[in-house]
Every structure is written in structure tokens, then in C-alpha cells.
């Protein structure tokens, strides 16, 4: 059978094309599907069917979103010699008060924003992203993840990775939905989902990341055969922060990722891979476990990348990668909301990457990682010195945080309040990271990103003092 014949004969929904048997050909399958020029109308039907398979994940509002007319108008008439465009109400660059700019890199080199570049930086841009930056992030994505379904993969630049995450969740979530998340979980994500009053299915996460056995357990009420076609009453996406997880600092192992992907495939679940600390794993880059995106033969992973920890948080630039039928709809939403990340920010990030070169950028993030690793080690020393016996912890394998369990304490909320009031030390109580309300947590989260050695030492000394005082009182 030719590849096309195999697709046509395939009974399973397009998402399951990436089964083991097809694995080697999955790239070919996808590229065949997506090379519209070689598809006749019958094959386009298959492509539409694949598009249709993704509709299951979208709520009513998201499935109704369409591309904005103005974008269609611009896309249809490309820039070619002699065309006079009086379509978009773009402000005239002659009136811009800023003509040019220059920025000095840490190593002393200069980025020059000459007049044409400055004009571009101040003008409206495309909702997908500044062209040169798009090329750079595509290259990085290919280099680190080589997504198996690359021809069916779409990327766009977001105003920070959280913006992309909220677009994705808003497109899929309905009130009262079942949602699978890390437990404990990044509070920023909980803040997106809480207002929908979802039914959280928290999956235990530890030093090695999300636990597949715990995932199987939370999914056990559902029959996978029925679940993967159902549109209501089943969990449809899974959120995870797999590397340097906020707050646990765990890094999900390769084995666990493969197992989790397999489970997601069985239940036809979208994986939201939120990975801002990807480069902050405390190991050599060559030893990074594969990302979910790199394992994604089905086309079920939406990945969120960020420049916030590697280059700049304040510029608000991140990017999203995933299956084209889903990502294009998220972009429709971006078209009529944020429009695009600040062009000035995008141009600057792109120029920094250009000057560094891809290898230079990786060298840069290696240094950043080294720094945070040394910060982690300093905090580990301080913790060992002051908190042994009083607290328990796993050594973070990535990220910026220690997740510490206070021995003999059921809930740290009152404790952290007292700590700030009487000892003038502020740490975050673990309850803020729990998906359900009205729960108790014996954990505290402590950041080592900016504290000095002295601050760590003094801070932990004060924490130990309070813990000992509390223990004495409780006796």
C-alpha cells in the first residue's frame, strides 16, 4: 500500500496515525497531508478530517473563531512590485518620535536599531511574529525537539509564554471541566483555571516529575475507548511543567515522559508542556531528557517556551508550538486580542540572538544555568547547616526553587505568616500550590534566584529559630 492508501484505510482518527507501526512514516504522513499542492480534493478531505479531529478539544467559542478579515486581505495580496496597498490603517512612520536606537550587550558589543529597523520595531506586526525571530525559534525548536510531525506543526510568538498558555486553556476549558495538572502546581496556571471552577485531577509530582502511576490512577474512572471520542465529562488536556518544575524543582525523567505520553495517547489527551526552565536544568545540555514535543508522533503536544529566564522577562516574549489545527485557532484569538508581542521586544530579542548566534545563545544559557546551579548549591549548604532535622527536601534538579517540607507541621500557612511578622522573612506557604481549595500543606517554597549567601544564611537561621520556638511551644 502507498502511504496515502494507508491513511485512507486507517479507521482510527487522524491523531492515532502516529501509532508504533507508523512511527517511521509519521513524518511522511504528515508532510503528505500538509503539502496541499499534491493533495487532490479527496486527500484534502483527509486533511480536513484531521482538522476536524481537533475540534473535540475546543469549546464552543474557540471552535467558532475565524481568521480576521484584515489578515486575509493582507495575506491574499502579497507584497509585490507595483501593488498599492491602502488596506490597513497603519500609522505613518514619518510621525514616529523615535528614529533609531542602540543597545549595549553585556559583552560590550552593540545592537544598532537603524531607521528602517526602528520603523519596523514601532509599526504593527504580524500576529504570528517578527519574521527573523520566527526563523530563529523554528531553528531552536528543530535543534532541541525535532518535532516528529513538523510539517503539521505551527508556531507563533506570544507576549510571554503565560499568554500562550492562557490562549490554549481558554480555547479548551469549559466550566466544571476535569483538568489534569501537576500536584503541586504552578499557581499562575491555577489562576487561569480556578475561575472556571474545574474538577482538578492532581497528579503527584516528585523529584522525578509527574508520576505515571498516579496519572493512571486519576484516569481510572474512565474507559479509554469511550473517553477518547467523548466531548464532555472527560479530561481533555493535561498541564505539566516538566523541567525545574515550579515549585518542586523536579525534572521529569525520560521513562516517565514516555509512559505519560502513552497514557495521553490512550485517552486522547492534549499535553500542555509548559517549559520556561528548559535551559535551567542542572546538567549538561546533551543530557537533557527529551521533551514531550520531541516524542509527539500523534500531534497532541502544545509546548510553551519562554525567554523570561534566559534573556528577559520584562520584554514579554515567548512562543507556542503545536498541531496546526489547534495553534491556528489560538492565533485567531491572538489576532483580535493582544495582536502580537511588542515589536520592539521581538526585534531586540531577535537581534540579541543574531549577534550571539545559536551556539552563542546556548553558551549564554549554559552560563545562566551554571549560575543558578551555584545558587542552588549555596542554598543547599545553608539548608543543611540550619534546617537539617527541621525540614526535608529533595535537591532541585532545575529551576529556581527549593520545595521544603516542614517536619511535624500539617499546614505551613500560619507559620509563614508568623515568619514574616516576627522574623521578617517571607517564604510562600505550600497551600498556594495546591489545586484544591481548603487543603493543608506542610511545604514551603523558597527561591534561590536572587538571594545572596548571607541572606540565605540569615534567612534560614531565622526560620530555624521560629521552628524551634514553635516546637517548644507545642510541647
Amino acid at each position, binding site marked *: 500500500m502507498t502511504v496515502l492508501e494507508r491513511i485512507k484505510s486507517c479507521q482510527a482518527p487522524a491523531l492515532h496515525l502516529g501509532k508504533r507501526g507508523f512511527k517511521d512514516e509519521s513524518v511522511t504522513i504528515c508532510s503528505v497531508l500538509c503539502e496541499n499542492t499534491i493533495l487532490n480534493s479527496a486527500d484534502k478531505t483527509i486533511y480536513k478530517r484531521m482538522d476536524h479531529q481537533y475540534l473535540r478539544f475546543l469549546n464552543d467559542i474557540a471552535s467558532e473563531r475565524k481568521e480576521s478579515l484584515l489578515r486575509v486581505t493582507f495575506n491574499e495580496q502579497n507584497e509585490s512590485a507595483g501593488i498599492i496597498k491602502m488596506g490597513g490603517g497603519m500609522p505613518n512612520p514619518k510621525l514616529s518620535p523615535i528614529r533609531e536606537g542602540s543597545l549595549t550587550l553585556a559583552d560590550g558589543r552593540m545592537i544598532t536599531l537603524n531607521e528602517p529597523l526602528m520603523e519596523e*520595531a514601532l509599526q504593527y506586526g504580524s500576529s504570528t511574529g517578527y519574521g527573523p525571530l520566527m526563523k530563529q525559534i523554528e531553528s531552536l525548536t528543530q535543534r532541541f525537539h525535532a518535532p516528529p510531525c513538523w510539517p503539521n506543526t505551527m508556531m507563533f510568538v506570544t507576549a*510571554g509564554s503565560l499568554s500562550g498558555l492562557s490562549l490554549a486553556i481558554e480555547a479548551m476549558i469549559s466550566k466544571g471541566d476535569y483538568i489534569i495538572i501537576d500536584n503541586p502546581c504552578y499557581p499562575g496556571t491555577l489562576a487561569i483555571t480556578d475561575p472556571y471552577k474545574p474538577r482538578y485531577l492532581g497528579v503527584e509530582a516528585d523529584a522525578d516529575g509527574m508520576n505515571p502511576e498516579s496519572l493512571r490512577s486519576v484516569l481510572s474512572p474512565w474507559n479509554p475507548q469511550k473517553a477518547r471520542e467523548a466531548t464532555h465529562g472527560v479530561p481533555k488536556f493535561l498541564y505539566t511543567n516538566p523541567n525545574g518544575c515550579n515549585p518542586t524543582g523536579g525534572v521529569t525523567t525520560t521513562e516517565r515522559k514516555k509512559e505519560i505520553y502513552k497514557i495521553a495517547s490512550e485517552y486522547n489527551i492534549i499535553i500542555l508542556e509548559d517549559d520556561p526552565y528548559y535551559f535551567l536544568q542542572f546538567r549538561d545540555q546533551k543530557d537533557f531528557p527529551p521533551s514531550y514535543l520531541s516524542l509527539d508522533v500523534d500531534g497532541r503536544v502544545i509546548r510553551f517556551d519562554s525567554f523570561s529566564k534566559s*534573556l528577559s522577562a520584562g*520584554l514579554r516574549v515567548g512562543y507556542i508550538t503545536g498541531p496546526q489545527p489547534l495553534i491556528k485557532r489560538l492565533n485567531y484569538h491572538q489576532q*483580535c486580542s493582544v495582536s502580537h508581542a511588542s515589536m520592539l521586544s521581538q526585534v531586540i530579542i531577535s537581534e540579541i540572538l543574531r549577534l550571539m548566534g545559536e551556539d552563542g545563545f546556548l553558551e549564554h544559557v549554559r552560563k545562566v544555568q551554571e549560575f543558578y546551579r551555584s545558587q542552588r548549591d549555596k542554598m543547599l549548604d545553608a539548608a543543611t547547616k540550619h534546617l537539617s532535622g527541621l525540614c526535608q527536601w529533595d535537591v532541585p534538579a532545575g529551576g529556581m526553587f527549593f520545595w521544603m517540607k516542614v517536619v511535624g507541621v500539617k499546614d505551613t500557612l500560619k507559620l509563614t505568616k508568623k515568619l514574616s511578622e516576627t522574623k521578617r522573612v517571607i517564604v510562600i506557604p505550600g497551600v498556594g500550590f495546591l489545586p484544591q481549595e481548603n487543603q493543608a500543606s506542610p511545604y514551603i517554597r523558597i527561591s534561590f534566584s536572587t538571594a545572596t549567601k548571607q541572606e540565605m544564611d*540569615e534567612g534560614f537561621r531565622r526560620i530555624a529559630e521560629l521552628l524551634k520556638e514553635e516546637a517548644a511551644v507545642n510541647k
Partner: protein
Amino acid sequence: MESASRMDYTRFMTDVTKNRKATLLRDLFNLQQQGRDDWIYVIAGLPNESFFPLKEGQFTMADGTKIILDKNTMKECLQYGPSGGYPPLVKQLEAMVKKHHNPPRWSERKLMTINGIQDGLAATVTMMMNERDFVLLAKPTYSTYLSLIQPYSPRILAIETDENGLIPGSLKGALSRWNPKEMSKAHKDVPKFLYMNPTGNNPTGTVLSADRRREIYDICCQYNLIIIEDDPYYFEQYTSEAYPPTFLELDTECRVIRLDSFSKTIGGGLRIGYAIGPKSLIEKLIFYQQVTTQHVSSLSQITLHQILNVWGEDGYEQHVEKVKEFYWKKRDDVVACAEKHLSELCEWNVPGGGLFMWIKVKNIPDVWDMLMKRAAAKKVVLVPGNGSMPDSSSPCPYVRVAFSHTPTEKIEEAFRRFAELIREEMSINKSTKG
């Protein structure tokens, strides 16, 4: 006269919006920003600034003035900031708003920065709209607003407009099916907000008169509607007379959310605008910002803040005056070109503001195919008016022409080609009719 009574703003919020709260981490971030010396903060995962790739920078303004981003400023530009806006910029914008619009009940309002007006618009829709809601808007209206609301399958109440903008009588007519007292209290199945782009309306270019604004405001009070005032062309009004008051200026009952931006005066690429409105509604928008973009780019905000500093109040006024003069001349040019090439074929009103001209093609009932399929061959791009109509599938004879950035000679040539295109289209239509 200021009314002492306060509105119940929860009536305008969706269930999901009512559930939105401040995020724990953002609250603690704000706490950390207070930076008291004797406290030890080990909470926020703020990236360490020693690794920021940029150390300092500068921008050169058109007149040669330099905006300096020194080491400390650059750190701020590259670091996370507070949701709601960079505080020094927020202060400046509050002062500007007070000066230009002098809103009543100032202490009941809050101002926040947003990622351009579009971001604010989307946030208000998310805040207030449920599926199948009634939506009041002008016909024609800003096409991207339609893209925003269409997915909710709204019941659109389209209000008629003329050369002076939205017609108050038509608004009254659309609301006449409801008893105002009952509608004011109802939570479901009634319109709850009115979207307005009153100045240099996109696409019609009309400027709503002062009298009509007052009448419309009164109607909104009667029927308890929130007014979304989308006003990016406030400074592009082609008149030497005093500007009509903004809805914010008229807002004695604190029911206006005004959206404004620096896209047309400084640059759309920076993505900076602001929203000002009743505190409890703006707070919800800030909570939403906390879980989406987090905040407007720190670099954009700080740069704008510095530009406004360098200019001072006078400098800013001078700049917007220059902008207005420039677009005014462009408006005159485009109208002259239209008179030269299109007077037999088309009808139009002279735009009183904004960056668009709204042209009706006399003998072509629907311009969609002509512009989307045949205009490319004529090498001219114009936007069919269909997208600005609440019912985009109905035939539409209107064309939206943007005159902001095309050199005048090219406008002339574009209209010459457009006239040819129309004539060809008319003969196609004749021949198909047999």
C-alpha cells in the same frame, strides 16, 4: 450633577469573571517590590539580573534628543513588572486623562496599561460577555470587534449611523422592546454594554457630535448600559474647533470604560494603551492581565515614560498637533483624489477624523469579489466593507480606504486603478445579465 449612588458592577460580569481574584504570586511580587531593607525575601522567582543580556541603551528622537536607558533603568526594562502598569507611567497617564477629559468621580476610577486597545477590548469582552448575549453596536463597525464577538454567537442589535455617527433614535429603537427599569435590573437576555468608536470611526471616519453624545449617554443611563469607548483617533480630528467631549468626560454615573492608545501617535509596535474605568471593573481586567500577558512590556512602558518626560506636557501637545496636521493633509489629499477619479462612480462623506475613508460604489451591490479576486490583477489593495457589517454575508457596496501611509501620488494612481476596476466590474455585471 453627580449621582451619589453607585452602580452594581457585578451585574456586568460573567460567572468566570466574578471568580477571578488576585494571584498569590503577583500579590507577593508587589510586596517584594516595596523592598524594605531589613526584610529577607526568598519568594518570587525573579530572574537574576546579573544575566540580563543588555546593559544599557539609548534611543534617538526625531529632533536629536536622546532617551538614555542607564544600567539601572535597563535592568527595570528587562525585569518583570507589576500588572496594571509601570507606576510612574500610570501616574503620567492619569495626569493626561485628567487634563484632557476631566472625568467626574475621579476617585472611583482606576487606570491600567494594556497591550494596545485591542487587548483591552478583548479583555472587556471576556469580562462581560456570555454566549448568545445581546450586543449593541453601530452599523458599520470596527471589523476586528466583530471578529472578537462572533464566536459567542451574539444576538447583534445593529444601530444605524449617518454622516454624524451613531443615531440616538436608532439606539432607542433597538432598546424599545424593553422596559428601561426592568432592563436596568435584569441579569440575562438584555444588552448590557454599548461598544462605541465615536471619533474618526473605523471605517466611516465620522465624528459623533456633542449633542448626540449627551443623548446617547442619557439613554445608556436609562437602560443601565456600560459604555466601551474605543478612542484611538481622539487626536486625529480634522477641525479647528473644540473637540466634542469624550464619553469619559460626560460620565457622571461612572459607567464608561475608555480605551486609548499610543499606537497612532507613537507606534503600534510598542503595544501600549490604557484603560480607565470604574475601579471594580478595571480590577477584574487587571486580574485577567495577571493570568495572560502579566503586564505590558517593561521596555515599552519605560521608553514611553521617558519620551513623555522629555516632551513635558507642551511637547506632547505639539507632537499630537503635528500628527493631526499630517493626517489632515492626507485626508484632504485622498478626498481630492476621489473627486478627481471617482465622482461619477462613487459616493462618500468627508472623514471628520481617523485614518479611513468610507466609499460607496454606486452601481455595484457587493464589492467582495471585485476587491478580493480582481483587484490584485489591478495591483491595488482596498478592504471590502463586508467585514465591517454585523452581517458580513449580506451584499455590501462599501469600500474602506486607508490613507495613513500611502504617498499622495500613489493614492492618485490607486484611485485611477480603482476607477478602472469598477468600470470593468460594471461591464462584467452587464454582460452576465445578458
